C-alpha cells in the first residue's frame, strides 16, 4: 500500500476526529448552549389577571374591570418600521412615540417593557395585523367606575415605581399597583396571580407558537372581589349634596362600624385616573387649589367645635363633677377670664338643654370643674391627662386603624404640650377653648362620625371600615369585630342622647329648623367651628333612630357657617335617604345644592 495514501488517510481521520471531538464538546459536554437557545427563542409573556372588582353593600359595582391593551416592546427586536403609521394607529404624536421608544431602550434592550399603555381594541387589531417585529400587545384590565363616585376612597391604580419593584418581586416594570384608597389597602387581595405564557419567537421576536404546547404555561388567577360597606346610592347622593362645597360626609353603621358613606368634597371622577389621559388628568387634579385628591374624611384635621361638648359632658358625668340636673346660668356667654361668647337662649339650663341649645357657658363650667377637681387631682396637669385618657377612648388623637390608607391621628393636647407652650404657667381658663371643641383639638371627620356611632351605641364602637367581605374568605380582619368601649359608663349617655334628640326636635334646638323630620328620630349635635381660614366651619354629628340606631353620621362643611344652616340639612337628608330610601323634602335638597359657599382661602391661593 502506498505510504502517502496511508498518511493522507490518517490526516483525513484526524480532521474528522477533531470535528467529532469538537461536536462532542459543544453538544454533550457544554450545557450553556441549551440555555442560550432557550434565551433566544422562549419569550415569557406575562398573563395579567383581571384585578378584583369591588361591590357596594348592596351588590352594585363600585369598580369594574374592563379589558384594555398595552403595547409592549422589545427594543432589541425592533426593525425599522413606519413610525407615522404607528403614530396614527395608536393616536400619539411622533415626539411622544420617540420619547417612549427611548425610555424602553434605556430600560432594557432585551426585556419587554410597556411602550404605550391602554391602547384601543381597534389599535390592537391593527397592530396584530401589521405584526411589527419587536412589538406585541398584551391584554390588561383597567378599572371602570359605573357610578363615578367615591374617587378618594376607592383610590386609583398606577404603574409601579422602582421601590415597589424592589420591595415585592411580584412586580415588574409596567405593572399596575394600587396607589391610594381601597386599591392600595387591599392591593394584595385585588391584584390576583399573574400567569405566564411561554411563546416561541423567531429572530424577529415574532411569536411562532407555544412552547411544548403550553405545558409549562400558567393561567392568571383573577384578583379577589371585595364587597364594600359603602352604599353606592347613598354615596352618590352625598356627593351630589356636597358638590361645590369643601368638606366631607362620613356615615357609619353603629352596630358594625361599617362605613356607609365616605364623601370627600371636592372629589373627582375616578374614570379620570384611568386610561391614556391619566397622567394629564392627575397633574390637573394635583394643581387644583381645592385639592380634590385629598381625602378630607380621613386626612383633614378639623376643630370639632360644639360637637365636642358631648364628650366633655360625658366626661363631667363620669368624673362626678356634673349631674344631669346641674343648672348653670348663661347670659350671652361665659364671663370669666377672656370669656367665651354664647348666643341667646333661656337661662339657667341643665345638661340636656345645654346640649339641645349648644350653650357655650355651660360647658365652660363643666370643663373647668373637670380640670380644677383638686380633691381628685393634685395638679391641673393630672386632671388634663385623665381628660385626655377619656377623649382618646373615643378614638380621638390617634388613628382608628381603619382599613384604608392615609388616616391622620388628629390631635388631643396633653399636659406636656401645655407645659411647654405656657412654660408650666397655665390653668383651666388658659385652655377653656377645649370645652367647646376649639383650641388645640384636631379631629378627622371619620373620628367625628365614630363619636356619633359611639354615642349611638351608648359607649362603644367598632373600628370603622370600608370592606365587609373578601371573596372566598369567611371574615375580614378580626380587629373589625372587636368592640372598643369608652371609659364612660353606659348610664351617662341617656341624658346626652336626650339632649341630642331635642336639638333636632324641640324648639330652641340648634338643628330643628332644617334637621327635623317626623319619624326619622334623628339625634344630633351641631357645631360651628372657628378656624383661621375664614368663615366658621359648619358641622353636625348625629345618629338615627334614637333607639337601636342604624346610622351615625358626621357632616363637616368648611366655611359653611352655623352648623344648622348646611351641615344639618345634609345630614338629615342622608339619614332620611338611608332609612326610608325616599326624599320627602325636595326643597331641602335644592336648598343644599343651591347654597353657594365662597372659599377665598383655597381659590386665592397661588399654587406653584
Amino acid at each position, binding site marked *: 500500500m502506498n505510504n502517502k495514501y496511508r498518511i*493522507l488517510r490518517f490526516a483525513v*481521520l484526524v480532521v474528522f476526529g477533531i470535528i467529532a471531538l469538537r461536536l*462532542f464538546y459543544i453538544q454533550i459536554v457544554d450545557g450553556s448552549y441549551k440555555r442560550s437557545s432557550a434565551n433566544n427563542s422562549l419569550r415569557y409573556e406575562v398573563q395579567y389577571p383581571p384585578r378584583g372588582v369591588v361591590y357596594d353593600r348592596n351588590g352594585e359595582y363600585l369598580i369594574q374591570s374592563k379589558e384594555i391593551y398595552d403595547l409592549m416592546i422589545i427594543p432589541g427586536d425592533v426593525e425599522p418600521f413606519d413610525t407615522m403609521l404607528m403614530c396614527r394607529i395608536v393616536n400619539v404624536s411622533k415626539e411622544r412615540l420617540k420619547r417612549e421608544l427611548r425610555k424602553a431602550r434605556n430600560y432594557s434592550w432585551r426585556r419587554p417593557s410597556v411602550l404605550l399603555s391602554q391602547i384601543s381594541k381597534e389599535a390592537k387589531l391593527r397592530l396584530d395585523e401589521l405584526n411589527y417585529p419587536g412589538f406585541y400587545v398584551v391584554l390588561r384590565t383597567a378599572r371602570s367606575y359605573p357610578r363615578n363616585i367615591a374617587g378618594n376612597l376607592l383610590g386609583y391604580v398606577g404603574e409601579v415605581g422602582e421601590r415597589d419593584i424592589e420591595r415585592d418581586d411580584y412586580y415588574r416594570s409596567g405593572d399596575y399597583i394600587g396607589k391610594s384608597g381601597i386599591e392600595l389597602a387591599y392591593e394584595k387581595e385585588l391584584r390576583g396571580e399573574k400567569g405566564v405564557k411561554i411563546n416561541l419567537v423567531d429572530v424577529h421576536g415574532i411569536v411562532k407558537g407555544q412552547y411544548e404546547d403550553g405545558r409549562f404555561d400558567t393561567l392568571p388567577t383573577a384578583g379577589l372581589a371585595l364587597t364594600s360597606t359603602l352604599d353606592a346610592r347613598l354615596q352618590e347622593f352625598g356627593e351630589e349634596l356636597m358638590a361645590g362645597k369643601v368638606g366631607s360626609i362620613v356615615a357609619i353603621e353603629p352596630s358594625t362600624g361599617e362605613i356607609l358613606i365616605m364623601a370627600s368634597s371636592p372629589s373627582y371622577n375616578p374614570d379620570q385616573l384611568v386610561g391614556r389621559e391619566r397622567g394629564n388628568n392627575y397633574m390637573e387634579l394635583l394643581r387644583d387649589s381645592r385639592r380634590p385628591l385629598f381625602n378630607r374624611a380621613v386626612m383633614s384635621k378639623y376643630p370639632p367645635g360644639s360637637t365636642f361638648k358631648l364628650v366633655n359632658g360625658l366626661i363631667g358625668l363620669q368624673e362626678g363633677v356634673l349631674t344631669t340636673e346641674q343648672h348653670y346660668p348663661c347670659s350671652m356667654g361665659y364671663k370669666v377670664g377672656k370669656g367665651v361668647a354664647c348666643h341667646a337662649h333661656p337661662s339657667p339650663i341643665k345638661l340636656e338643654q345645654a346640649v339641645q341649645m349648644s350653650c357655650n357657658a355651660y360647658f365652660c363650667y363643666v370643663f373647668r370643674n373637670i380640670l380644677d377637681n383638686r380633691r381628685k387631682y393634685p395638679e391641673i396637669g393630672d386632671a388634663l391627662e385623665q381628660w385626655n385618657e377619656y377623649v382618646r377612648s373615643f378614638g380621638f388623637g390617634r388613628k382608628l386603624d381603619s382599613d384604608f390608607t392615609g388616616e391622620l391621628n388628629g390631635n388631643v393636647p396633653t399636659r406636656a404640650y401645655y407645659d411647654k407652650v405656657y412654660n408650666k404657667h397655665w390653668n383651666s381658663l388658659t385652655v377653656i377653648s377645649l370645652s367647646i371643641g376649639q383650641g388645640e383639638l384636631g379631629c378627622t371627620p371619620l373620628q367625628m362620625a365614630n363619636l356619633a356611632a359611639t354615642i349611638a351605641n351608648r359607649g362603644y364602637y367598632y373600628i370603622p371600615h370600608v370592606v365587609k367581605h373578601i371573596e372566598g374568605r369567611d371574615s375580614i380582619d378580626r380587629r373589625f369585630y372587636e368592640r372598643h368601649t369608652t371609659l364612660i359608663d353606659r348610664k351617662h349617655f341617656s341624658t346626652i342622647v336626650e339632649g341630642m334628640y331635642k336639638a333636632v326636635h324641640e324648639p330652641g334646638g340648634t338643628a330643628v329648623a332644617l334637621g327635623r323630620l317626623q319619624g326619622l328620630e334623628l339625634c344630633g349635635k351641631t357645631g360651628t367651628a372657628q378656624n383661621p381660614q375664614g368663615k366658621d366651619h359648619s358641622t353636625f354629628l348625629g345618629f338615627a333612630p334614637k333607639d337601636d340606631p342604624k346610622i351615625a353620621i358626621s357632616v363637616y362643611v368648611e366655611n359653611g357657617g352655623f352648623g344648622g344652616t348646611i351641615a344639618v340639612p345634609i345630614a338629615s337628608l342622608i339619614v332620611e335617604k338611608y332609612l326610608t330610601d325616599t326624599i320627602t323634602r325636595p326643597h331641602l335638597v335644592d336648598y343644599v345644592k343651591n347654597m353657594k359657599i365662597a372659599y377665598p382661602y383655597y381659590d386665592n391661593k397661588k399654587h406653584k
Partner: protein
Amino acid sequence: MITRNINNSGRGAMSNVDWVAVLLYFALIAFGWVNIYAATNSGSADSPFDITDRYGMQLIWIGGSLLIGVVMMLLDYKYYHILAYPIYIAALLLVLVTLTPLGHESNGARAWIKLGPILIQPAEFMKIGVALAVARFMSAYTFSTKKLSDVVKLGVMIGIPMLAILLQNDTGSALVYCSFLFMLFREGLNVWIYIVIGFVVALFVLSFWIEPTVMLVLLVVVCAALQALQNDNLKQTLQYLAAVTLTSVAVYYLFVAVGAAVSMFWSVIIALGLSLPVLVTYAYRRQMTGVFMYLLLFVFSVGFAQVTDVVFDKMQPHQQHRILDLLGIESDVSNWGYNVVQSKIAIGSGGFAGKGFMNGTQTKFNFVPEQETDFIFCTVGEEWGFVGTMLVVSLFAMFILRLMRMGERQQETFGRVYCYSVAGVFLMHVLINIGMTIGLMPVIGIPLPFFSYGGSSFLAFSLLFFVALRLDEANRELSSFSV
C-alpha cells in the same frame, strides 16, 4: 475492459460500479434534503414537492443531477480524458463571464450568472474543469512533481481560475482550490512545501494570540532547539541562549540608565544582532551549515510575524473580523460574531438526540443566518443532535476515504489524480463548512456538499462524484482492491 463503452449492454454494464460509494452518496443527499426541508419549511402544510419552496426546488436539482449522473455513467470514460481541457476552458470562460456586466452580484460577490429564473455559479463547475485538466496534465508520461517547470505550469492551471474567482470577490470559493494540495501530496509534491505552509499558518495564528516579544523569544528557543537537535550541541546552544538573555537584559537597562526608552522586543533584537558575528564565526569554523538554515528560518519567521499585521490590514473588514472571531480575540455577539455564536448555540443546544425533526428553534426561527445554505449543518446539529452530526461526519469521512480508495485502485494516473482531487475538494468543503459552524474555522462562505441549498453546487458535487464513479468503474485495477 478498455473496450467497454456505451455499446456494452446487459448485466455487465454496471457490474463494476462501486455501490458502497453510491450508497454513501444517496445517504448524504437524502439526509441533506431532509435538513433543507426542515430549514426552509415555513410551517405551512404544503406538499414537499412544492417548487415555490426551496426544499421543492432542491428536489428538482437532485432529480436533474441524478439524471445527468446516469447519463454520465453511460458515457465512455475516455471522453473525460479527451474533453478535460475543453471542459476546463469552457468553465473558465463561464467564470470570466461573471466579471463582465452579464454577471450577477449577490451577497457582495459577483459570482453568478442569471439564466432566466435560476442563478448559476460557474465557480462550482470550475472545480470539475480544474480536476479534469489537472488529471489530464499530470497523466502525461513526461510529467513529474519533481520538475519545477511542471509544478509551475500546474500552479498556473490552478491559479488562473482561483484568481478569477478571487476577482469575483468570492474568497471562500477561491480558497477551495488549495484543496488540490491534497492530491499533490499523494502525487509526491515536496513535503517541505506542506511543512512551510503549516508553519506559516501556525505563525499567522500565533502572531494574533501572543505578544510580539513572547513570539520572538519563542522563535529563538524553537530555532535553537531544532538546531541543537540536528547538530547535537545542546551545551553550546544553552550557553548561547544564556548569553543572549544576559545581553538583552543588559541592553535594556543600559538604555534605561541613559534615560532612553527601549522595548524588551528591541533589546532582544539588538542582543541577537550583537551575537551574529560570534554565531557566524562559530558555525563557519565547525562547518555547520544547519546553523545557517535555522538562522534563515528565524529571520523569515520574525519577518513574517511582522508582515502579518500588514497583510491583515490589507484584508477587508469582514474578513478581518471573521479571523479575529475565530481566534477568540474579538467577539462582538451582535455583529460579526453573531453568525458563529448563533450557529454554535444551534448545534450545541441539540444535545445528544437533538430537538427532533422540524423542532429546531434556532433554525426554524431564523436565529441562524443562511441556515439552508452555508449554515445547514446547524439544522443537523440542532434537530438531530450528536447522533445526527456523527452520522453526517461519519458519512463524509467514509465518502472521502472511499474516493481516495477509488483513486488508489485506478490503473491510470488520470483516474487517480482525478479521484484524489475530488476527495480533496470534498474534504476542504466539509472541513471549512462544518468547522465554521462549530467555531473551528473562520466564517468562509462555502457550501456543505449535498446539504447546502443551491443548484449549482449540488450539481457540481454530483458531477464530480459521478465522473469519479465512472472512471472507477472503467479503470479498476484488479489487484488487491477487488470488490
